[in-house]
């Protein structure tokens, strides 16, 4: 139920410019005391395609965790939500605004994949494939300047590779701790 509620919230917030303005990660406003933005930023998306892909990844991974019976998924969501924006705040002072659920989605994906690696049966190869794809995706974003070009090509933001990396680390850590 929690992922579904988060997804609906994200949809509502993204469709409402007033709510988006109230919830988005805005470094200046966070520094002036609006700390809720550290958590609510994940509900804000900057375009329809941004929302679509993030919700797809988030709901897919949440549904998968539910089907596999990984009861720690809510903990992954909560810790990734705090860790990603916290890392951006501490390590990326240049980033004035941030929004998106993909850091949390990445945490869930990696969590499920690491848990899958530890399980017996036919889980290992698909889980390994997902982990490789995740590393490739983050590595590509970190090393290439694709993000900047994407920003100019229509997306109203540059992909925050750091948030994905932190999300993945959180997912892997929770999975390792609970396996």
């Amino acid at each position: 139920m929690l992922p579904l509620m988060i997804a609906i919230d994200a949809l509502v917030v993204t469709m409402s410019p007033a709510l988006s303005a109230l919830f988005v990660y805005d470094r200046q406003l966070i520094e002036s005391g609006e700390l809720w933005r550290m958590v609510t930023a994940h509900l804000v998306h900057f375009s329809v395609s941004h929302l679509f892909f993030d919700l797809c990844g988030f709901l897919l991974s949440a549904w998968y965790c539910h089907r596999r019976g990984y009861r720690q998924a809510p903990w992954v969501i909560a810790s990734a939500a705090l860790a990603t924006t916290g890392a951006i705040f501490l390590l990326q002072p240049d980033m004035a605004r941030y929004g998106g659920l993909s850091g949390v989605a990445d945490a869930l994906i990696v969590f499920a994949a690491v848990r899958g690696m530890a399980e017996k049966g036919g889980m290992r190869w698909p889980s390994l494939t997902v982990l490789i794809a995740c590393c490739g995706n983050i590595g590509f974003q970190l090393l290439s300047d694709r993000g900047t070009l994407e920003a100019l090509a229509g997306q109203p933001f540059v992909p925050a590779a750091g948030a994905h990396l932190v999300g993945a680390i959180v997912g892997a850590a929770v999975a390792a701790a609970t396996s």
Partner: protein
Amino acid sequence: MKWTRKETGKVTRSLAALLLAALCIALTGCMTGRESCRTASVMQYLYPDKKEHVETPSIPELTLPLRVGIAFVPGEQNDWKQKLSEQEKMALMKKIAGQFQQYPFIKGIELIPTMYLKPAGSFPNLDQIRRMYGIDVIVLLSYDQVRRTDEDLRSIGYWTLVGLYVVRGELNETSTMLDAAVFDIASRKLLFRAPGMSMVKATATPVNQSEQLRKNGNQGLEQAEAELIVNLKKELEEFKVKVKDSPQDYRIQRKPGYTGGGSLGELYLGIVALAGMVALPRKGNGRKG
């Protein structure tokens, strides 16, 4: 005194010749048109007739998000009555600013009054404006409006004097061109341009001629503005694609203040979905928590 038939014929012929001559003069008058124009040329502003120095554009380095300035280039010195008013210019600049504001890679837009641009000021003047406003890119707006007036055959009616008030014998044509040229100031490179054109035709009586010309001028500007906005949007979209496709022609950098967002790629999501389908046990076999 009684005129003979021969004398009457002579007088009639003379009158006919006189009338014919008058008609010819009137028609010749119809052929000659009057023309006036108001112009502010971007070429004249950026590349005046100077021989000592030639500006060579280099590869533009666009640092995102961009700060954009919008300004009208100064018009001709001698036609102050014909010039666009500062209010008209500001109204148009605001509309153009609206087009740029919707793009995330644009951080701020400055509307620069024309008085800050020196006639034939060229790039040194733009460098001053760049420092003053802290802009990277400037949209230079220029215009060229030509009004042409002719008189048609109906203008013969002016001879009746009343005709001056009721006969619409003045044919007016107003052609307008607005142009927006977007320059990267540092590299002197034209990034893209968008035109807007219009042609307004109307008739008028001599008495309301100047009023009609003014109306036509304003209408022409409005139509050209509308076309310019549409073209500007199109050119902006094409420019984004061009920047993406030609990284060798445009260097892109980031600067503090950008927006970041978590984004999952289609390929990555596809792999995750596929792996999930393979890994997920069939209904009934799954471990439910």
